[in-house]
């Protein structure tokens, strides 16, 4: 295996484009190293992105939006008070990935590119309306986060393309987000179901909302019917019930070692209600 440490994303894309065999990018490495160790993936070329300037930075733009480097680990997100204040749901999603030790390494970009339908950080990003900057052999482009997953273990990135930054929109006023997942233990498991809710209030009424569901379909995706169920409401009992029903209706899960179809579906509704309540109270500044 060849180990590369390019100093620009362009070089990284060139290396990946030129490589003939199995290629993997290394950011946090918490998925890639596990796959290598298990013999599931035996890369011919491993491209370590952590030497590229800026990949460890969290920067707020003039418009209030955020640019998060692709090697920023979960622990660093959690330690960034201003980012946590703006996007607590995004940060708590990332902070649920693995242990304290994994938090020292695992990244948003890695969690996204691993392509898992159960990735804990992705629903929060999708609900937040985050985008990614993609560098490829033909330059850079950007895309909404929800366009990256292509089914279990797959992404829509073309050969030689890689994510070069995660971009969060400006939070704005009276907004709040939250992410909840269900796992059998209190820590260390992969989500059996997950839900992120991002909303903006006008007075007590929800003016805008985005809801994303995880681990209940082949891809993490927006659930527009969930958003519709709560927009224009004050998140009263009827709205919560409608949200619960919409979340269940949006599920197309599988039975596997982590959960059943019936369980995932029912719990997705529960999580949607609970996450919406948290997002709502955050939006009210409570």
């Amino acid at each position, binding site marked *: 295996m060849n180990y590369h440490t390019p100093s620009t994303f362009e070089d990284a894309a060139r290396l990946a484009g030129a490589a003939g065999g199995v290629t993997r990018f290394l950011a946090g490495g918490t998925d890639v190293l596990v796959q290598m160790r298990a013999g599931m993936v035996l890369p011919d070329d491993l491209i370590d992105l952590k030497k590229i300037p800026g990949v460890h930075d969290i920067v707020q733009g003039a418009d209030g939006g955020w640019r998060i480097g692709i090697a920023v680990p979960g622990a660093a997100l959690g330690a960034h008070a201003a980012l946590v204040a703006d996007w607590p749901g995004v940060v708590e999603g990332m902070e649920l990935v693995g242990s304290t030790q994994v938090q020292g*390494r695992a990244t948003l970009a890695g969690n996204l590119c691993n392509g898992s339908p159960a990735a804990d950080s992705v629903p929060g990003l999708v609900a937040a309306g985050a985008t990614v900057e993609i560098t490829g052999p033909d330059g850079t482009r950007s895309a909404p986060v929800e366009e990256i997953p292509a089914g279990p273990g797959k992404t829509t990135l073309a050969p030689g393309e890689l994510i070069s930054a995660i971009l969060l929109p400006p939070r704005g006023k009276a907004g709040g987000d939250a992410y909840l997942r269900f796992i059998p233990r209190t820590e260390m498991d992969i989500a059996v179901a997950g839900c992120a809710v991002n909303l903006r209030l006008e007075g007590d009424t929800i003016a805008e909302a985005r809801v994303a569901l995880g681990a209940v379909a082949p891809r993490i995706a927006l659930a527009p019917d969930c958003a519709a169920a709560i927009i224009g409401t004050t998140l009263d009992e009827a709205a919560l019930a409608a949200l619960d029903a919409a979340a269940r209706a949006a599920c197309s899960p599988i039975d596997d070692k982590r959960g059943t179809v019936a369980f995932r579906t029912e719990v997705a509704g529960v999580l949607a209600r609970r996450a919406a309540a948290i997002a709502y109270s955050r939006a009210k500044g409570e």
Partner: protein
Amino acid sequence: MSKIHVTTTVNGDEVEFLADPRESLLDCLRDHLGLTGSKEGCGTGDCGACSVTLDGTLVCSCLVLGVEAEGRQVATIEGMAEGNELHPLQRKFLEHAALQCGFCTPGILVAAKALLEKTPDPTETEVRYWLAGNLCRCTGYDKIIRAVLDAAAEMRQEAA
């Protein structure tokens, strides 16, 4: 398959080794540097027995490549005591009988030290969640949690 020369600092000492780029930092510590205090319990980041700090950040050394240690600061269980002076956590683990087989102990001590450096006065719940990635199969965690809380109390008193 060519090996890569790595220069790094482990427990304050500059060391060099030749690493196959596929080898984890844990492999390199154990097999190239003879530092076998860090253990491999799973190789997947699920058990924490290989916990070390890398530039002060707590990580699983099985999830770091050896070649990534180039120019970094690594701290392992072997550097926790100062000569014969045990770290308060080490002493409290002995006093509280917080170990049975002792295999998870190095990783838990390294992780707990990282916690107390960040949070000198943790609650029981904070200790439990911080250590959730350190599996112990012998103790049921009870005496481990008590030892960490007691060490924290002692360290706060010393600092005061």
